[in-house]
């Protein structure tokens, strides 16, 4: 059974995929208040991801969650580069680099500046 990874699209990410076929694949969430791309992950690849990141897990929707921000960032980079959602192999090729960045993330993530 495949699993999924949701990639949230903020304004900056939306601009990067403007005019590409990816625009048609954008899903609206919560009355359009959130926009997201959904990447399908075959089971053997999702096992590889779960093994690589000890906090990662499958949620009740079948989505792989609690992934490092570095992973999500790399995933979007590959999507924007390939203009396709079929990029999971490319991301897995970058696993050592992502794991290295994720290590730093387990200590500190800068908080957002809100009032």
């Amino acid at each position: 059974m495949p699993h999924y990874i949701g990639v949230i699209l903020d304004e900056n990410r939306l601009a990067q995929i403007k005019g590409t076929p990816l625009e048609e694949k954008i899903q609206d969430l919560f009355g359009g208040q959130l926009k997201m791309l959904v990447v399908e992950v075959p089971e053997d690849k999702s096992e590889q991801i779960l093994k690589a990141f000890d906090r990662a897990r499958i949620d009740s929707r079948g989505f792989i969650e609690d992934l490092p921000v570095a992973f999500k960032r790399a995933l979007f980079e590959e999507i924007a580069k390939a203009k396709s959602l079929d990029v999971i192999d490319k991301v897995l090729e970058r696993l050592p680099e992502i794991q290295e960045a994720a290590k730093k993330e387990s200590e500190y993530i800068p908080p957002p500046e809100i009032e």
Partner: protein
Amino acid sequence: MAKLKMPPPHGGELVNRVIEKKEYAESLAAGAIEFDLKPTLDPNGVPIRHVYREIVSVCYGFFSPVEGSMTQNDLEGVLKERRLENGWVFPYPILLDVSEEDLKSLDVKEGDRLLLKLKGQPFAIMDVEEVYKIDPKDVATRTFGTPENNPEVVRQPFDEKHPGWMIYRCMNPYVIAGKWTIINPPKFREPYDRFWLPPAECRAVIKHVKKWRTCIAHQTRNVPHTGHEMLMKCAAYTGDIEPCHGILVNAIIGAKRKGDYPNEAILEGHEAVNKYGYIKPSRHMVTFTLWDMRYGNPIESLLHGIIRQNMGCTHHMFGRDHAAVGEYYDKYATQILWSEGIPSFGFEAPPNEVEKGLKIIPQNMAEFWYCPVCGEIAYSENCGHVKEKQKFSGSFLRGMVAEGVMPPKVVMRPEVYKAIVKWWKVFGYPFVNNKYLENLNKELEVDLAPMEIPKA
């Protein structure tokens, strides 16, 4: 239907083993053998449990009728059929475990009195009833069950990835059994002090201050999203001749799995729900229980029922994947327990229908999701737009938070998000990580006043 009233404490009477009078407390501890309480560490040295939390919860009556570290008979009863030796339902082993080295240096035997110290100060005494050996792995596995022995609800064997199993797995091999008595009542630090309401006081507040005749408990280990809020609001429509008068949020506070929210954000996040009027404060109250969460789904739900009955609640809401992590249990294991029982865990009938069982009434709830067709948060048993549904997911929200995206207010109230960010700024991290656990283990939730114990 008859009007409901507050149920009695589990076991008949609330345990109260806290000595407030200092001189009397000092005299009880005089000459006792000193022992510094220690955390349970995982194989990487990360603290995953501190027995002091269990001592507090026992002595203030949250876990009534348990009065201390369990004897071997109690432990066997709990592991075999979730019953204490006296027959009352209780789900988890409560144990003061010590290493062989500590046991040798203590040289304790039945009849001795121990002085348990915390943060360098006298904290509690215990009268030793028994010292015995356990196999921590066996205790861990029998606590949570196996697919072979508990096929009704256990879906995969428990292992190192399960934080509750790891707590028991990492315990020391010797148990000192006996009743605990706190002799130096802990002082809760901010923000815990605002939410500290032990069972006797909670019952009094519910009865005399809030004047709630009926009250439904909400278990939480999470910062609330609007799905949780709707669960609380809708579950509270149960009651008797009218909806429940009150909603008691009771957060489980202690060491948690990495990736959960910090305790402080959980408490203040829930507080924001009533402070900013999403549920009126006259109808909603936030409290906590000290316990290093075991994530035991149906097993944990029994403890939750006991705690909240002891706090004075008439009802308890149980959702999907209650107190669960991973896919070890059936998603509806807790609801199976409370609707038909789980014979292999000792329940031929639901826990509120067995002898010496609970009196709290379960309210099993299905799920809430966002429905773009209805344009609102909908209850799964009402909403027919199954294809269009957008499910709430705590981990999806955590991902959004980590990426620095403010969740839309239809999913999380902005004031709740601000509580997360407030503590994110304090800890440099929005979730529990090793650093948070190490700091929590050092500081704990409490301070203790200096106390001089006369030598024998």
